[in-house]
């Protein structure tokens, strides 16, 4: 076990999979000579050469489209789209090609492709700070992964590269420098398995990506008030593993769902709907959502701070589902 950053964990996963399988190659903007815009791919061009680490033109449609074509021919491309905002330029290739090719031709073709991209951001204004995971999570035929820890990031990226279906792998720009333990030996974290990151009996907090960290901070805060929150990290958004969420709700009878995306039609809406469909009788309170304010992200620091959710909003939502007055002192017990 070594304590490494999320960035380093991702780099290790790419490197190990490239060593393990000749068919794995990387393509994307500024992943080579520049060193990767978030430095995840730094050093890989030097180690593997231009055949396996391809700097591309600013041509997202061709990056993803070419990756689909190469995947159909049996390669295992890992296409990096510099940020999730730029996947919109190529959304046709993702949704109309990558997600459809196996089904539409009756299962004859496969598309073992990974699209690595990054959500989140600070002070980058409306078009560069978006959390668009729900666009992909909506689409049958895609798998969508959004890890919160270095351990999960490495294990899930390896699983994604070995998977025979297209995987949209969503990193978070504010997680790259966070650290955590990662085993020295080879391992994968299976796609489609949620994970309980903290045990607690009073309320279930469901989160993913950076919001899992915020949820854990909120849980510490709540613990000081005598409230034990359980934190379930979805890790994969599609296919969604509701098992641990429902088990948890059966014990706590209350749930708060946290996403950094916008509230309407978001991940929280889906999870809340599934809880009420599958565990209605377990609930003692309505399921609450914590999410970004429904505004394009403002640049001004003070407005941006209001727009993004964090541990404070999670604490308040938990107090609310427990019917505790916000701000009032809470009795221990």
């Amino acid at each position: 076990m070594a304590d490494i950053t999320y960035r380093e964990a991702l780099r290790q996963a790419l490197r190990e999979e490239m060593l393990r399988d000749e068919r794995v190659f990387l393509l994307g903007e500024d992943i080579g000579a520049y060193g990767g815009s978030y430095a995840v791919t730094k050093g890989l061009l030097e180690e593997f050469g231009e055949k396996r680490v391809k700097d591309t033109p600013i041509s997202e449609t061709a990056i993803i489209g070419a990756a689909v074509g190469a995947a159909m021919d049996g390669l295992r491309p890992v296409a990096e789209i510099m940020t999730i905002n730029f996947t919109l330029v190529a959304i046709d290739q993702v949704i109309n090609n990558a997600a459809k090719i196996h089904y539409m031709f009756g299962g004859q073709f496969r598309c073992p492709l990974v699209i690595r991209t990054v959500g989140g951001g600070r002070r980058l204004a409306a078009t560069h700070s978006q959390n668009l995971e729900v666009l992909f999570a909506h689409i049958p035929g895609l798998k969508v992964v959004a890890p919160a820890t270095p351990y999960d990031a490495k294990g899930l990226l390896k699983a994604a590269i070995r998977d025979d279906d297209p995987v949209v792998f969503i990193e978070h720009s504010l997680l790259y420098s966070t650290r955590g333990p990662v085993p020295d030996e080879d391992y994968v974290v299976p796609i489609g398995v949620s994970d309980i990151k903290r045990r607690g009996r009073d309320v279930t907090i469901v989160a993913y990506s950076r919001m899992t960290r915020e949820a854990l901070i909120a849980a510490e805060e709540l613990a000081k008030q005598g409230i034990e929150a359980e934190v379930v990290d979805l890790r994969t958004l599609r296919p969604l593993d509701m098992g641990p969420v429902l088990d948890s709700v059966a014990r706590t009878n209350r749930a708060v769902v946290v996403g950094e995306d916008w509230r309407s039609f978001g991940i929280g809406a889906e999870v809340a709907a599934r809880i009420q469909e599958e565990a209605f009788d377990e609930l003692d309170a309505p399921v609450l959502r914590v999410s970004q304010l429904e505004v394009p992200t403002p640049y001004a620091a003070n407005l941006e701070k209001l727009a993004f959710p964090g541990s404070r909003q999670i604490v308040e939502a938990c107090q609310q589902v427990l019917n505790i007055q916000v701000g009032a002192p809470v009795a221990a017990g």
Partner: protein
Amino acid sequence: MSTERQEAVLLPHQQDKDHLLDLYRKMFLIRRFEERAAEAYTQGKIGGFLHLAIGEEAANVGTIVALRDDDDVFTHYRSHGHALARGMDPGAVMAELFGKTTGVSRGRGGSMHLASLEHHFWGGYAIVGGHIPLAVGMALAHQYRGLDRVVLCIFGDGAVNTGAFHEALNMAGVWKLPVVFAVSNNLYGMGTAIERSSAVTEVYKRAAAYNMPGRRINGNDVLQVEAAVRDAVERARAGEGPSLLELVTYRFRGHSMADAELYRSKEEVEQYKARDPIVAFRRRLEEQGVADAGALSAIEKEVEDTVEAAVRFAEESPEPDPGTIFDYIYVNP
């Protein structure tokens, strides 16, 4: 149709002393403004991405001054220079970089998203290539309404590899729209040298594909740039359709403030710095007897004061009122 390299023929008014000094003043203003913005960034007063055009001032100024006041500008995220050359208030531009309510986009957009309706400055856009179709659409509207306004659309060499560039230029060519496409070819898109991203590295040659004139201009010579853009603008105004101008230039600083510049050598940068367009123009003005050193220093002093006042204005301006966070999402909420 010409797709030859050309020296632009200088225009009569370009001999005019006041005009020449105005060009110098504008270029020097951009340089000082950006140097001060860089300082403010390192002090944490500006956040997110800050893209400087230091080294590209001749291209910034030469393009904009060729327009009539009621002509229109669309540009990208590296556009402090375009805004200042257009006569937008340096204080209001700096305040936007600081995220203040007095900023040109009311603190919502930041450095990448400058705009001013009054100046027919229709915005800086940060999705590479994304604004090129908008410029074409505005040119279509001018043609439709029988107006003689011309649209200037500015972008970088990296943007020419997007689908949006191809689709938009073809449409402008088919409909003979009054739009001038000006590429600031600074030889790199982020860390990717043009030879590594473009099959045809002489951008002006692409004009042939859209049946419009293409010209390659020394983008570090403000007079050459102005003359070439004026030609293209007059052509568009006369109903003869669009043009593609390639302004060859160089950025002295990194792509943004966070760029280790691993992709180019210090020697290369020094070589270009030795041919600084502002220094060269200053020398020319002195040699041709347009102004002596004293007169030029006086202009520089005045610009310094303007920029200091702009920084002070930005610092002293208030942040946006939190109560306005939901403003401007809809015209009719």
